[in-house]
């Protein structure tokens, strides 16, 4: 029987999953919007971050405690990767950037495989199965935390882009590189900050995912496929689009899982995807010009 409570539970569950999808998609869309490339290393960085959180836990550091330091570390790693490897190796050609990120993803994935094998791992926390009560519904505590953290990060990123100097510099470089250089903005620095922010979002996503999901060296692939769908759905380069698109995809996945069964659940995502693109080819929040 489909009672309103069951439907509501599926929607809430979808929102909590979708918020983390959004967090993963936000970095992808940010890098696309500013560097005009799809970062093929996105999934590998997520997997690396999940392993980092996993080992932090083995040394007694809870993922929620590791979240802030790992975000800082991954910001630094992302900054350095863009500034020292991806940028210089691509000689200013967008096409090369694409190939370099593809190469980077292969390197990261194989390093993870060599170091940790393809075993699936997960952590046991005291709160892994805890729930909180929301009216008539029970929501998984770690998923509720993931929802809250993801929304907070999304809003922080939005505020950063709109109200800080570096955020405005990022938006300026995204649309008008020469105009940005004319006021003294240094595009290589801006690209590296953008890449760093994207990696920091992945580190945060990794920390909220780990209490509820497993990790293996290929775990990023599944998420990135969904994240890419969200980026296109929301409008390539749009932060708001990625946030709304992520929540939407989470709910659609959850509802179609409920209505069509688990094996067909993913089908709903692609039906919505095709439908939205038929009606709005540039995505929900894509530029119309």
């Amino acid at each position, binding site marked *: 029987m489909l009672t309103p409570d069951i439907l509501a539970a599926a929607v809430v569950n979808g929102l909590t999953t979708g918020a983390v999808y959004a967090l993963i998609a936000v970095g992808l869309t940010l890098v696309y919007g500013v560097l005009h490339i799809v970062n093929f290393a996105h999934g590998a960085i997520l997997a690396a971050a999940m392993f980092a959180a996993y080992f932090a836990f083995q040394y007694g550091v809870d993922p929620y405690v590791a979240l802030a330091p790992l975000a800082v570390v991954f910001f630094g790693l992302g900054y350095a990767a863009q500034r020292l490897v991806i940028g210089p190796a691509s000689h200013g050609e967008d096409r090369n950037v694409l190939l370099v990120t593809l190469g980077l993803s292969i390197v990261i994935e194989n390093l993870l495989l060599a170091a940790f094998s393809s075993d699936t791992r997960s952590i046991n926390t005291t709160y892994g199965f805890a729930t909180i009560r929301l009216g008539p519904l029970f929501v998984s505590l770690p998923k509720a935390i993931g929802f809250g953290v993801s929304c907070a990060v999304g809003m922080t990123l939005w505020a950063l882009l709109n109200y800080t100097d570096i955020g405005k510099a990022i938006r300026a470089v995204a649309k008008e590189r020469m*105009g940005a250089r004319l006021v003294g903005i240094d595009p290589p620095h801006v690209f590296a900050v953008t890449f760093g922010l994207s990696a920091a979002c992945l580190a945060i996503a990794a920390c909220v995912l780990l209490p509820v999901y497993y990790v293996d060296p290929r775990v990023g692939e599944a998420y990135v496929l969904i994240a890419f769908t969200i980026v296109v759905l929301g409008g390539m380069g749009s932060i708001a689009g990625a946030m709304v698109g992520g929540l939407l995809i989470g709910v659609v996945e959850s509802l179609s899982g409920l209505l069509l069964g688990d094996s067909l659940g993913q089908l709903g995502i692609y039906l919505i995807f095709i439908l939205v693109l038929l009606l709005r080819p540039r995505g929900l929040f894509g530029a119309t010009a």
Partner: protein
Amino acid sequence: MAETLLSVRGLHAGYHDLKVLRGVDLDIAEGAVVAVLGGNGAGKTTLNKTLSGLLRPESGEIVFDGRRIDGESAAAIVSVGLIHVPEGRKLYPDMSVRENLELGAYKRGRPARARTLEHVLAVFPRLRERLSQRAGTLSGGEQQMVAIGRGLMGQPRLLILDEPSLGLAPRLVDEMFELIRRLNRDGTTILLVEQNVMQSLEIADIAHVMEHGALTLSGPARMLAEDSALAKAYLGM
């Protein structure tokens, strides 16, 4: 005689295999309006880009305010007060007029920004009511005001204006030249690149004609304006 603010010697620059500037020598005195005129493709914009550090010179020397700046980054050059308002404006179309203007002060301290913005809005009162409008939706004339306003936000000591009257209606062209005169009166040294020969010669102190990447004719602007034979030969008038 006023101090020399900018001094260029033997400047060569270009794009990959294409040589554009072939030995440019140029001096600009503090407080002057200097015009560089010349036909399409002569290398005027390339000169501006090289002065502002967008393009690395192949050889030659650029001294600004007693300091070598050739080979410095564009950001460092903006910091010392050499500001380039480009041909084609290069605004950030999705950002508001206010954000476009404020980014002009990116290399300046925050405290100075509000004051500089007030100054720019006094120069361009029409922009005040458009502060929250997206720059990409402004008219061409308004966009040119934002482009120059953004340049002024950088507190220029030398302001390079590359074809500021391009695409403006005749009445606005007159206003633009009046504005340049006013900015100069207020103390800004100006390097003006223009296709609008007569009006440029009227407001400039010194004028140069650029041909094939070199300055082939230089002199007081008034003399160039009066010498109709020269004007015909060099400027196609």
